[in-house]
């Protein structure tokens, strides 16, 4: 069997939130879509971070946030990515190593085209797909 690639298991769509959006707007958007987090983008569409619900409900937001916090204030500014053609295990390894819940998937031109979450991996397992190299 050919190597299982990231593109085989990813969710081939990417919901993003604006980094300028308020934390409340982002919470609404994530709740509505039943997702736990999403990449954040700036006004030009560039990915500048990743926001999760747990970031949004942190009871002790940083002291320097004076006004209503935005996504940009609360997000993790690391955007961890893998390429669609990478082995699926690479996405798994990134989640484990960096202690994160979602990895952004890029195409050959380094454009974001999807996302991998633990549930994507679980669905792949359910389909009987093998992550190891055989």
């Amino acid at each position, binding site marked *: 069997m050919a190597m299982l690639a990231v593109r085989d298991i990813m969710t081939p769509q990417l919901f993003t939130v604006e980094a300028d959006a308020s934390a409340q707007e982002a919470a609404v958007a994530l709740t509505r879509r039943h997702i736990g987090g999403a990449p954040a983008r*700036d006004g030009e569409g560039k*990915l500048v971070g990743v926001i999760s619900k747990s970031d949004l409900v942190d*009871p002790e937001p940083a002291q320097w946030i004076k006004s209503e916090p935005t996504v940009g204030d609360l997000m993790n500014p690391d955007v961890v990515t893998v390429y669609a053609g990478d082995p699926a295990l690479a996405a798994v390894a990134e989640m484990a190593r960096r202690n994160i819940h979602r990895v952004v998937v890029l195409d050959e*031109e380094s*454009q*974001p085209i999807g996302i991998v979450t*633990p549930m994507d991996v679980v669905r792949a*397992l*359910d389909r009987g797909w093998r992550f190891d190299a055989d």
Partner: protein
Amino acid sequence: MKCVEIMNANVQTLSERDTVLRAATLMAEVGVGFLPICDQRNRAIGVVTDRDLVVRGLAKGVDPRTTSAAMLMTSPAITCLASADLRLAEELMERERKSRLVLTNADGTVAGILSVADLVEHAPKREALHTLQAVLLRESLGPRGGAEPGTVLLRDQSAGPPMAEADLPHSGESVFSGGHRITNGKTFPG
């Protein structure tokens, strides 16, 4: 109000002997990334999440077909009596920093699951005000964030049924310049 009034009683559980693969199958079937693992008397001995299967399992090279899901679980499970007052459950969630609790009958058997979302959605307003500090934000939002149907909820996204915006055009230039990972500050160089 009691936990039992708003809990999800239709809960799927795993046994100690179920494999990681079985856990994945069940999670995929019911679309839930959280399963209690029970002993022979249906008492929860731990819980396993989709992330546990990935991070503690696959990433470590375990064989999902032969490894017991119980090897990857968080134990003990944080439990609360289903007959307890919601406020007790809220306090427990706050103290343990858990967004989901396993609810039990008096004999310790699993009765259901209570999530923060259940609290927010169902608890009467007055009680909801006491809901753990960590969910203040979600609490203030309610199931649809208090927004009117059809309201555009994000500046950059059109409204629509959940997950239907898939076409989700990620427009604009990419920040990716060939690197495998980007670490951005809030002032990402354009």
